[in-house]
């Protein structure tokens, strides 16, 4: 069971807001603090591990960049939205970030309500109001990728990928910004 404070977002929240382009080139451990720096400066600093994002339509629209990974690294336990962009959803599967499509979710929560999520059954309950909604559950094949810790972990286990290279060796392009 996932239980977390809810942060609310509207429709069409895009990947460039989640992970701004210049941040893609920063060391992965520095990336999470830039999430939503253009539209909600300071927000990432207030997120606690286990928090949940509740959004309206078309969450994660945009590019193939690892926006799901950076939300996971920030500590987001689950994204629940009226609808989720197909590419972003696939990245959620592959980076092992629970994400549910759930009709009516946006109106069922206020900011900082607590969501109780049974991910396997895809049910989401608002602890304050008691209201429960049913989302679209993940099929077993996708849950397996999540449980394996994501697709890259799976590829490593199956011998397609070598070990993780430590990020100390990766670049640190300068970035202007907030």
């Amino acid at each position, binding site marked *: 069971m996932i239980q977390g404070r809810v942060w609310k977002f509207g*429709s*069409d929240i*895009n990947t*460039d*807001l989640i992970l*701004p*382009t*210049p941040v*893609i*080139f920063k*060391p*992965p451990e520095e*990336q999470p603090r830039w999430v939503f*720096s*253009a*539209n909600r400066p300071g927000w990432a600093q207030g997120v606690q591990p286990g928090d949940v994002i509740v959004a309206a*339509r*078309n969450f994660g*629209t*945009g*590019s*193939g*960049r*690892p926006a799901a*990974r950076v939300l996971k690294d920030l500590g987001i336990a689950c994204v629940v939205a009226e*609808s*989720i*962009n*197909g*590419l972003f959803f*696939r*990245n959620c599967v*592959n*980076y092992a970030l629970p994400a549910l*499509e759930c009709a009516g979710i946006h109106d069922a929560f206020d900011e900082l309500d607590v969501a109780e999520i049974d991910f396997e059954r895809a049910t989401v309950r608002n602890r304050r109001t008691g209201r429960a909604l049913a989302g679209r559950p993940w*099929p077993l*094949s*996708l849950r397996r990728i999540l449980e394996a810790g*994501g*697709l*890259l972990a*799976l*590829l*490593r286990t199956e*011998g*397609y*990928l*070598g*070990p*993780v*290279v*430590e*990020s100390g*060796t*990766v*670049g*640190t*392009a300068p970035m*202007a*910004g907030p």
Partner: protein
Amino acid sequence: MGLTMAEKILARAAGRARVEPGEIVTVEVGKAVLIDLSFVPTSFLRSEILRVKDPERVVIVFDHIVPARDVQSAEALKIGREVATRLGIRRFHDVGPDQGICHQIIADYGYAVPGTVLVCPDSHTCSAGAFNCAARGVGGPEAVYAACTGQTWFRVAPTIRYLLEGAPRFAVSAKDIFLHIAGTWGDHVNTNVEFTGPYAAAMTLDARRTLTTMCAEISAEFALFEADDKTIAHVRARTSEAFEPVAPDPDARYEDVRTIDVGAIDPMVALPDTVVRNTRPVAEVGDVAIHQAFVGSCANGTLDDLAMAARVVKGRRVAPGVRFIVTPGSQAIYLEALRRGLVRTLTESGAIVTSSTCGACAGLHLGALAAGEVCVTASTRNFKGRMGSPDAKVFIASPATVAASAVRGRIVDPRELLRRKRPARARSASAP
């Protein structure tokens, strides 16, 4: 009940007679295309690819950060080159004459094979649907998975069919038709789109690709055209692979069928930050002064687009204080634009013609915006911060509108400039 184009391709790739919307299917991947960002260690792949299923079905294209924009990019490109050599990947598009933006390369080299599945990390991969190919951006890990195993999965989506009828007004292009769709119907999340009808058949392959590429902006899954003689001739000339296109069954099941009279559409503009329900005719945008104009990207870096931009600026000057940047979709297009005198016309007008790269489209290099600046762009995306500072404003329009705006220094309807030049066009039409 019949099948849509996407359903037919997925069924075939899954080795099944039919598939139903809602189910998850595992499919054979015809081509897995990796890009330079695949090798940027901070992006996702902090490990080596040890083996791939079939190097002949893997393509590597360098596009986002070429020529290397900094040392980090240079290191990533170096890793990519090493991977291509070690895994024996012959279809490798490094900086040089066969380099370009991946979706343009996929089109130009016949990697988009009708009736097959193609995947790539990049979101605009739906572009290849113009060639009757079920193509989809799948993100970094999945593209590597597809290269390694030769397979991927899709959730079969319902389909919306667009019937394009009529003939477009003067100076109205595929980009305007897309902006009309995005403004009228908004997002198409978890939905395929099919484009059919008399105008779909009349469109050039370049124009079809503009339309399918832009479908990433409305979160469509697959965006497909039928394969006609134009498509088949194009692909046959570029690949020895046998292929079998798909057409929708007459009794295919659609979530909606929408008829568009393309003759009723005026030049359109998307206002800053999104195209979704955020577009209007140029005439309704008001007086918007610009600092930068851009024609390029996987959607609008085609020869059609460069020719249109050149036609608009021919014999005119880019307005003082405006940077007009033009980026061909591939080096082959650059070369052809040189041959046709388009590069010269553009450069004489004051435009900058760059090498082929994603560059300005994603604010990566060659044309990022400062805070407070305004850009009108014939590229794909205008999210906040997309082309540089989050405090810049980015409007999206067609190449004709962008070029006309570059000349005027404000966003204008291109017909205002083009109409006055009709005699000149008649002369240039007879030139070789």
